[in-house]
């Protein structure tokens, strides 16, 4: 398919090498297992492939045709056309990690700009060049805390109002450290709902407290007391944030967070069924030498010209090997570029507008839904950003199945991750939905839950 060799060239090359056939180059491979016949379908030409994949994709329902109220960690935002136009430039997407600064200033400077945008957004001091996704940034935050306390603090506290997938990922990442306990988010615990319960868990054995902001239920909670408590015992505090919300809301840095991590997908990255997304990882200065992942720093070249390079690489696995705090190598470079372009394009004004639109439309939707028979807002007195929980008169999965006939993808069924939340739907509203869409949703909800 993509090998350019002509028969004549192959002949010439074999002659130079001094072997008779290509097979001769593989004699070291155990003969018994050499050149297996693979049971794969016949190869497709490009024209066949294009129609095959179009056919596969059309077996999905997508936000292309459906109105969607799904959020819960992945959000349907508008992506300006210039983002993808730039991402399609081969100079960006077919380059490797910028190990050779002289011929990688494009990637390096863009990453430096990404780091700048992320620290400004979060109110933190330092951002790395990206991590895999929101969940793994949360896990790496806990991992960082483990190394920061040299393994001496055993307790990792996680609110039950942190994205359940993130909590699972934290547990996965920490399982190698036999004596570390992850706690605070047990089903029996009310910690996700009552801040005070969570605070009371914090002690001098606590390495880190992880909370989400806005939390998984969309709520905007004042974490001042929690931060104070954590700091009073010397523990680190990590905020898992939603970047869009920071167009309006006080940033984690202003709360005193030591670490602020989050999912960058809302910043110009398509839903794409869950990936590739963008892990944002920001910290206070003093943690920089424990930070996982790449960092770009400013310097000068030998002519004195400004230049950018990967820096503090001695932290990383390719130099530090078994003594590094993380094994991350390939990160989400192109996704970080997407976020950088996105934020540059919509800028100060546009980003505020997006946040405000999300807020306003979500509140309109919440008001309308709360007036529907059998529906009720779950957390009436807590402010929320663009996501909220409603109690539904019927199981959410049932409602959602019926909504599909109305070309609507309903909100997230919370009972999937929270057994205590039967008949609770988590609804997200972004700037992509019009009032008309929301009104359609209300009408459809009324219809599918009526009798």
């Amino acid at each position, binding site marked *: 398919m993509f090998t350019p060799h002509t028969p004549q060239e192959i002949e010439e090359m074999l002659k130079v090498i001094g072997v008779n056939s290509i097979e001769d*180059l*593989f004699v070291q491979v155990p003969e018994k297992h050499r050149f297996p016949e693979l049971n794969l379908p016949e190869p497709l030409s490009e024209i066949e492939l*294009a129609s095959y994949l179009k056919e596969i994709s059309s077996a*999905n329902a997508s936000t292309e045709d459906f109105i969607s109220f799904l959020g819960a960690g992945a959000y349907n935002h508008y992506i300006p056309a210039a983002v993808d136009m*730039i991402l399609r430039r081969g100079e960006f997407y*077919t380059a490797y990690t910028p190990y050779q600064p002289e011929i990688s200033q494009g990637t390096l400077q863009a990453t430096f700009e990404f780091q700048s945008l992320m620290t400004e957004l979060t109110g933190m001091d330092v951002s790395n060049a990206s991590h895999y996704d929101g969940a793994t940034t949360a896990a790496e935050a806990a991992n960082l805390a483990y190394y920061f306390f040299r393994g001496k603090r055993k307790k990792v506290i996680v609110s039950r109002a942190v994205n359940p997938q993130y909590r699972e990922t934290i547990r996965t990442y920490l*399982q190698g450290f036999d004596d570390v306990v992850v706690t605070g988010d047990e089903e029996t615990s009310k910690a996700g709902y009552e801040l005070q319960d969570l605070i009371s868990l914090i002690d001098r054995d606590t390495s880190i407290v992880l909370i989400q902001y806005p939390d998984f239920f969309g709520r905007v909670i004042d974490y001042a007391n929690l931060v104070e408590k954590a700091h009073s015992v010397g523990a680190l505090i990590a905020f898992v944030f939603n970047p869009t919300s920071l167009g309006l809301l006080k940033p984690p840095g202003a709360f005193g967070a030591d670490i602020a991590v989050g999912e960058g997908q809302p910043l110009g990255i398509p839903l794409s069924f869950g990936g590739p997304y963008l892990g944002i990882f920001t910290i206070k200065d003093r943690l920089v030498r424990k930070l996982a992942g790449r960092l770009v720093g400013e310097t000068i070249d030998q002519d004195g010209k400004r230049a950018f390079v990967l820096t503090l690489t001695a932290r990383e696995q390719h130099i530090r090997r078994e003594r590094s705090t993380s094994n*991350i190598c390939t990160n989400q470079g192109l996704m970080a570029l997407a976020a950088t372009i996105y934020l540059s394009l919509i*800028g100060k004004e546009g980003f505020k507008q997006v946040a405000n639109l999300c807020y306003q439309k979500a509140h309109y939707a919440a008001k309308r839904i709360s007036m529907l028979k059998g529906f009720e807002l779950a957390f009436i007195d807590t402010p929320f950003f663009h996501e909220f929980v409603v109690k539904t008169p019927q199981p959410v999965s049932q409602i959602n199945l019926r909504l599909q006939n109305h070309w609507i993808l309903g909100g997230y069924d919370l009972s999937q991750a929270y057994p205590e939340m039967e008949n609770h739907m988590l609804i997200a509203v972004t700037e992509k939905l019009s009032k008309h869409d929301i009104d359609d949703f209300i009408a459809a909800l009324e219809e599918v839950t009526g009798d």
Partner: protein
Amino acid sequence: MTELTIYELSQSGRKGVTFPEPDVPLTPLPEDFLRESLHLPELSEYDVVRHFTNLSKLNYSIDGGFYPLGSCTMKYNPKINEEVARLPGFANTHPLQPIVSIQGNLYLMYQLQEWLQEISGFHRVCLTPAAGAQGELVGALIIRKYHQVNNNNRRKKILIPDSAHGTNPATSSMTGFKVTPLASDSQGNVDLESLKAECDETLAGLMLTNPNTLGLFDENVEEVIRLVHEAGGLVYGDGANLNALLGVLRPGDIGFDIMHFNLHKTFSTPHGGGGPGSGPVGVSEALSEYLPSPIITIIEEGDEETPPFFGFYKPELTVGSMKAFYGHFGIHIRAFAYIAMHGSKGLRDIAEKAVLNANYLMTKIKKDYVLPFKRTCMHEFVVEGAWVDLPDVHALDISKRLMDYGFHPPTNYFPLIVREALMIEPTETESKQTLDAFAKAMNAIAREARENPELLHKAPFTTPVRRCDEVKAAKDLILCCWVPD
């Protein structure tokens, strides 16, 4: 040609892409939580397009030229893959939709699992890991859990050849293992005696890259695996170099227990200037219930009329979730497309031509450069980027000088066991004409090293910036633009 940063370009009051006013009745904002300021740049769309267009021009890329970065498999990234990954029916699906509404995605992922199994000889594949290193993490966690389940809690030792990539030891220590390096023998194979000496009841496993990072196929690989297995350990395969083995050898067939794939190397998905990658993991039957969740599975078999119905499966002894959702679906699409376009013969052709290109280039270069291991190589090879009689010339100099000849340098200083290593991986998509031009440049540089070494020390001359002061960068630690208050 330096380009200002977005903050330097920003002009107070300038607007880019803006949004309409809300079309709903307004709700007051939550006063207590509002931020005071947010200094994002203020640029026009044009500023932004021009800025990133000009930044892009400062990059070297595969689409622009030869990129023989060893261990990275910088092959051509087919353009149709970029198209199909952007199909609205894929790109606009939310990961939490009801499964009945995402049967297309699940079908594709299921097929990809099956194909990767067939290609590698493993029993089950999980697509979720985000990159090679995360695949390794899965592997290490499986080794750990496997011994736990089998009540072998003393098995804490992971053996790693000294030629291995840094992610292998880093992964092992992240998961609570103790790393023991294994020496290579004079042929670049794992040293069998050293291995035997470490095969005791604390052995958890071995992480093996084969072909290894020297580009050499371990001639004793079956013996190595046997020894580890006999000692009760598991063998993890670092699949970064799978490109050499497509249709040539299925690692599962010779006893590897676990292996990650790098879709962004072997299966042509773009590197993106540092990612995203995708690092699916395959395992033997014995380990198949340890894989991370979810696995895509058939929930209801289909028949003539109806296609099978796909869903998620959580393995019984799973090590857990590696990340949110199901891996890098956008990358899975590209790898799927790549495999679908190749089939069995096409995949073998990839490996054959990758190995042909590497041996051809090695032959053309070896008269001027020291080849530490004089064997047929696989998809890549390592030479010394220095000469004993020229103590001032280093691999770095050669690398930088190559830029002036219009080429991306090879990987430098890795693997660590070769003095001044230059690790060269041409990949199968490069033509003989390109290899000849590169060999010519390498030969010219070898001559320059003797005749005019200053050219090498001062190189590059023709790049957007010249050698950069890395010490200063680490000392000053300027990690973001100045942002106005």
